[in-house]
């Protein structure tokens, strides 16, 4: 019977997929219900033209939109141990991984690229929520570390686009270990004197916020993104109260002093490039280089003698 499973099933699957295609051409705004043609949405960087709602953006698309001319060098990412726990819930973890890889075309939840943003060289990592909820497991942890290492090797800023439901539970304690491991990566950037800029996108929660996603020198959030340690459902169940309006959204975090700014996706490139230029190692500035620009204290010193 095996040959039937092997041969017939894929054909049926492809038939089903074909039927789905026309529906995917139009995307509905979750806020207003407005329908937008997918090409128009992509041209607008996945921001709904009328409501300004920021849709989720895949890792490849994000890197393409972020770098000048859509050009970047993919940073090779190390492979991580596959399923050391032999985890199985309702399905095998290995099967879930396989599905996620087929669905997204990614090996795991994070991609890293090096390129230029308005002419400023940076390394950027992007977390893809479509890959098992952007969950942080060993592979994603290695990707953050590899990204930070690439930035250090090139002496350029590191930009992290975070999107995640949290730690990858199917990797148990090994996913929790990615919190200290990625924190080591952020420290290596700091010790190398390089800026680390985090862009929090919708949603970023759990262990990811409890590590590299909240340790940026600059914290940027896209509008309306859900950002928090505990998910809203968990909090509601714990305190048995309704959550306040706008709770755990970007603007709420900004008002509570937890992020530096909320930036529209169209403004991310100029904002990040401008910040990186501020932090670039300075060539001797004229005011400091010219001693004759400080005559007054010398005269005072002479007078005091």
């Amino acid at each position, binding site marked *: 019977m095996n040959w039937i499973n092997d041969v017939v099933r894929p054909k049926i699957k492809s038939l089903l997929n074909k039927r789905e295609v026309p529906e995917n051409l139009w995307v509905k705004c979750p806020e207003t219900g407005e329908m937008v043609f997918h090409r128009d949405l992509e041209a607008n960087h996945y921001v709904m033209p009328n409501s300004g709602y920021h849709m989720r953006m895949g890792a490849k698309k994000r890197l393409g939109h972020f770098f000048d001319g859509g050009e970047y060098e993919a940073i090779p990412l190390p492979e991580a141990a596959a399923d050391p726990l032999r985890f199985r819930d*309702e399905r095998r973890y290995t099967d879930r991984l396989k599905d996620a890889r087929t669905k997204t075309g990614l090996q795991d939840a994070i991609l890293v690229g090096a390129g230029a943003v308005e002419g400023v060289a940076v390394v950027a990592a992007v977390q893809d929520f479509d890959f098992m909820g952007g969950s942080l497991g060993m592979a994603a942890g290695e990707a953050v570390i590899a990204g930070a290492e690439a930035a250090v090797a090139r002496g350029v800023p590191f930009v992290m686009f975070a999107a995640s439901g949290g*730690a990858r539970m199917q990797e148990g304690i090994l996913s929790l270990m990615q919190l200290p491991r990625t924190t080591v990566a952020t420290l290596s950037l700091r010790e190398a004197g390089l800026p680390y800029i985090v862009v929090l996108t919708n949603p970023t929660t759990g262990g990811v916020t409890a590590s590299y996603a909240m340790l940026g020198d600059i914290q940027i959030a896209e509008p309306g993104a859900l950002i928090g*340690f505990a998910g809203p459902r968990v909090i509601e169940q714990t305190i048995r109260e309704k959550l306040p309006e706008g709770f755990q959204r970007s603007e709420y975090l900004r008002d509570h002093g937890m992020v530096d700014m909320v930036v529209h996706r169209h403004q991310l490139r100029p904002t990040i490039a401008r910040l990186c230029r501020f932090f670039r190692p300075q060539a001797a500035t004229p005011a400091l280089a010219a001693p004759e620009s400080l005559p007054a204290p010398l005269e005072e010193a002479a007078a005091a003698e």
Partner: protein
Amino acid sequence: MRTYLEFEKPVAELQAKVQELKAMGESGDAVAIGDEIARLESRASQALADIYSKLTPWQKTQVARHPDRPHFVDYQRALFDEFTPLAGDRKFGDDQAVVAGFARFRGRPVAVIGQEKGNDTESRIRHNFGMARPEGYRKAVRIMELADRFGLPVVALVDTAGAYPGIDAEERGQAEAIARSTEACLKLGVGNVAVVIGEGGSGGAIALATASRVMMLEHAIYSVISPEGAASILWRDKSRAQDAATNMRITAQDLVRFGVVDTVIPEPLGGAHRDPDAVLTATGDAIAASLAALDGLPADEIRRQRREKFLAIGRNL
């Protein structure tokens, strides 16, 4: 009155019989009853040994959460002289879910940071059941930085179901507070040791357990999410906690195998709560040995070793 766990029922029944006989012995044939008591007691301890030699991860979860299990306060009293707790994060408040300060451990000054669950209604509320808010982690950071400045090692005792999931905790930056505490551990130029004495719950635990040496009691658990939490997310059914506990590998024995835990501290027969003094002493000895191994290392070397230890986790599986 001892609290028996569900799976300890055979032991509880034998012990009940012993109690019955003891009561009878006061009136009847003392010699014959004495023999029977001895026989039953030996059967009870055999049953206990059998049960505890093959505890399932879910049973360990219950042992780790046992109400009579020694808590931070017991370790603090037994192991740390002149304990001087320090309060507050200097930003918002004092969080009693994390108790921190300085003390003498076998004569030498150390920083002590512990998570305390409390042992009666009043103290449980005061310590928020061991679930810290941002202020708890920020207090820990303050104490770690102080220890680093004066060259004192840091001892952390971990026992939490997790960081507190509440509106106030979120609005004051729970995630950032945890991340900064982990970061503070990694920046320490002094050695730090962490012991998971009960529950090591997720980010709330790693914030203190990013240590040069990580130890765990034999029946403690350490996990990315509680078995109940994993069950309700992955199985969409809270009653599957048992499966989640098994699948997630949360026991000390598994975590040594993964290189996450360096040392397992043995517990007395039937768990820490049956002989607290034994487990307190064993933990003290293990802490002393870990600190001794770190003594004399230069600050850069301590930082380097700690970071490389964590970077190596998972790379050879």
